[in-house]
């Protein structure tokens, strides 16, 4: 059970690695953005994992829930905000990519830099 308990953290670490790697090593700008959202998703997972209480339920009082143990609401609130921040960044990034494509005709970092050098 202990292994399973720590598995979440490992997945967080590996997802972080995959996303981060895509951001640094990929040349295609859209791929970089996708990597960035994976990278952020890993952090969301960390926070939500931290907030889980074993045997708890979602922190919404309801007659069906009764007097049960509730999971921690705070990380959920933080991640709600962070998800919104993430999608905002993505939208702005995509806007910039579309403009880059219009100005340069490509969205590959290397090719853009070559065009600039000329």
């Amino acid at each position, binding site marked *: 059970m202990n292994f399973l308990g720590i598995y979440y953290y490992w997945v967080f670490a590996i997802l972080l690695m995959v996303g981060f790697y895509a951001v640094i090593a990929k040349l295609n700008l859209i791929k970089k953005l996708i990597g960035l959202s994976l990278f952020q998703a890993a952090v969301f997972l960390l926070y939500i994992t931290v907030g889980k209480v074993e045997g708890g*339920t*979602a922190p*919404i009082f*309801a007659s*069906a*829930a009764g007097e049960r143990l509730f999971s921690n609401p705070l990380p959920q609130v933080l991640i709600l905000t962070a998800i919104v921040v993430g999608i905002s960044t993505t939208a702005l990034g995509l806007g910039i990519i579309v403009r880059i494509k219009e100005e340069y005709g490509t969205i590959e970092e290397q090719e853009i830099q070559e065009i600039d050098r000329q």
Partner: protein
Amino acid sequence: MYYAVTIALLVTMALALLRALLGPSVYDRVLAVNMIGTKTVLLLSVLSFLFGRPDFLDLALAYALINFIGVLAVLEFFRVRAEQDKSDANTESR
């Protein structure tokens, strides 16, 4: 018994994911996405009863609706692309 259904759903999600990874055509992948979407709806409905919180069915409802929009957006994307190809071909032949 909810457990049995949940396991069946999870395994099916894995199978659909495999289909999405294997392709081979983009339509197969869209099919897989759609499948995983509906499986998520089912999973969430079953899980909310498993957890004894039927008030979370709202989530499943939201998924069912959003998933459909996603598929339509993909179709629109195909249409736009087909048209782009056509216009590209036209300009080339001219």
